[in-house]
């Protein structure tokens, strides 16, 4: 089922890529230009997606007929949501780092992620503060990366 849907997604992406690529200019000296490679890649998406989906059709038919357990597996939402946690933390960092500062945002992220995996409160607190401060100072002081200061500004 997953491969079938992915195949369709690739075909749709292929169509979009070809459509966008058609708007690029051609070069005066040649019949083609910047649109050639994206169009070929779009075509690759279409053909590959078609193969991927088509290969799944007999499997899907058999599964549907046998009322396969695959459908139950697809309903396991919790692990799927849990796997999105790192993405949530990145979005949290992007949104909050400007006013909270990189160190504080990272510390909150580490703390939340450790608690989610049932680490003890004290360990989470200590590790999150230490790790975020170490990372902040390595990158901002040693490597001179202008990480957002945020609340650290008041530190001095």
């Amino acid at each position: 089922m997953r491969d079938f849907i992915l195949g369709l997604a690739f075909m749709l992406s292929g169509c979009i890529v070809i459509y966008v690529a058609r708007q690029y200019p051609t070069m005066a000296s040649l019949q083609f230009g910047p649109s050639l490679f994206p169009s070929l890649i779009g075509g690759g998406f279409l053909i590959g997606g078609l193969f991927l989906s088509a290969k799944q059709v007999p499997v899907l038919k058999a599964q549907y007929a046998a009322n396969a357990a695959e459908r139950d597996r697809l309903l396991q939402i919790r692990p799927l949501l849990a796997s999105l946690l790192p993405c949530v933390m990145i979005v949290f960092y992007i949104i909050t780092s400007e006013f909270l500062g990189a160190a504080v945002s990272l510390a909150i992220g580490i703390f939340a992620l450790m608690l989610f995996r049932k680490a003890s409160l004290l360990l989470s607190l200590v590790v999150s503060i230490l790790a975020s401060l170490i990372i902040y100072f390595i990158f901002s002081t040693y490597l001179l990366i202008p990480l957002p200061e945020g609340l650290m500004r008041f530190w001095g």
Partner: protein
Amino acid sequence: MDTILLGLQLVFNVETLLVILAASVFGVFVGAVPGLTATMAVALLVPITFYMDPVPAIAAIVTTSAMAIFSGDIPATYLNIPGTPSSAAYVGDSHLLARSGRARETLGVNLVCSVFGGIFGTIILVFVSPSLAEVALQFSSFEYFWLALLGLSCSIFIAIGSRVKAFLSLMIGLLLSTVGLDMMSGAPRFTFGIPDLMAGINFIPVMIGMFALNELMLFYGSRGDGKAMPSLSKDSVFTQVPGHLKAYWPNMFRGGSIGTLIGALPGAGADIAAWISYAVGKGRSKQKDAYGTGHIEGIVDASSANNSGISGAWVPALVFGIPGDSITAIVIGVLYMKGMNPGPTIFMDGSGLIYALFVVFFLANLVMLPIGYAAIRSAKVFILTPRKVLMPIILCFCIVGAFSINNSITDVWIMLIIGAVASILARCDFPMAPAILGLVLGTTLENNFMSSMLKSNGDLLAFFSRPISAGLGALVILLWLSPLLTVAYKKFKNANSNKAQELS
């Protein structure tokens, strides 16, 4: 001679030696934690190398990858969980030996074979690369186009699993390589009005997203913490090793040769080298049945191959700028950043950098002996580090590392999007190596195609007008036709055997 001395001078200084030492400890740590691969270790290291001189930067990458490949054997032996995919081929044998109280002996053999494999591959790198570079000097855009296409095609045909998925993975990498201003016309492509995308997508956030964020998402989507810990053995690390080496030295040479050869093929990394070497070793062994039941011979075969594969992958990377595996794909990016453009001229620039690189390879493999020995003795520290503590810290490194490339939050978004997509694809068994190769080689492929077309006024037959170009083109076509030829050959063989049966 002066260039060689210059190369030695670039390596034997306090900074580079300290970097090698630190990178080897880092490599051991990352490799020994299940779920963190050698590629991920290198991807995490790249933002740091950004601020180093060329030689320490390359030394850090070479040492980390070599150490991580070896130390992946530690959790494989004790926990039956390969630390890196390269240890997967012989994890069964290693763990069964550990359960019979021979863990340190097994790891001792692993260590010596890894050092041997690494040095064997480096010797091939030192002697083969300069000769190949002389041939590569004859290459024009036609040959480079075919070579890039050959590398990309290999990544599909060598990939484990579905070729359609490998093809689609490659297409994703190629699409990413087209983002930014077109080199020929200057037209912006897939930039969506974002100024940060005009220069193209930086490969580092993509690497971090594909390898590190993807692993993190898989970890949070699972329940296990991988810390089931059997009692650690107390047998000797090196006492039994000479006996095993005496019995299985041909396996070491065969493993080293297979590893170097497979490593040099674009898209095939140390993991594939280990699997093939293990299979070949089993096929030629007098004790075939013992393989998989806790037999040292298979471990000798495969652990020599995976480390020599690391060195082998550098041959096409240095000579042609075509990466042999995902680690060298990252390395090529680093080389460009450091002004060491990979290609035949790297052997002739007179700066001694290439000799420094060779020396770094030898040092990285030699330093593996003491550091690896210490790691085996203190295996508990590496294996017991809880991943629930480690993973959030790694995520922070990913965020700050992606940001630090251009001091831009756009790169963090790119890492996030690529990581999310890679996670979906990885769950559906899509290989990631073709995507990386597509990203790295996409620009080479397109630019060489376009400049060849300009040179030939759009005549496609010009791609077959030069002897080497025609040979490489024929090889690519043969590769693409190989599935059809295989089917045809099997049908022909079956038909013949049926006829023979009817006649008899």
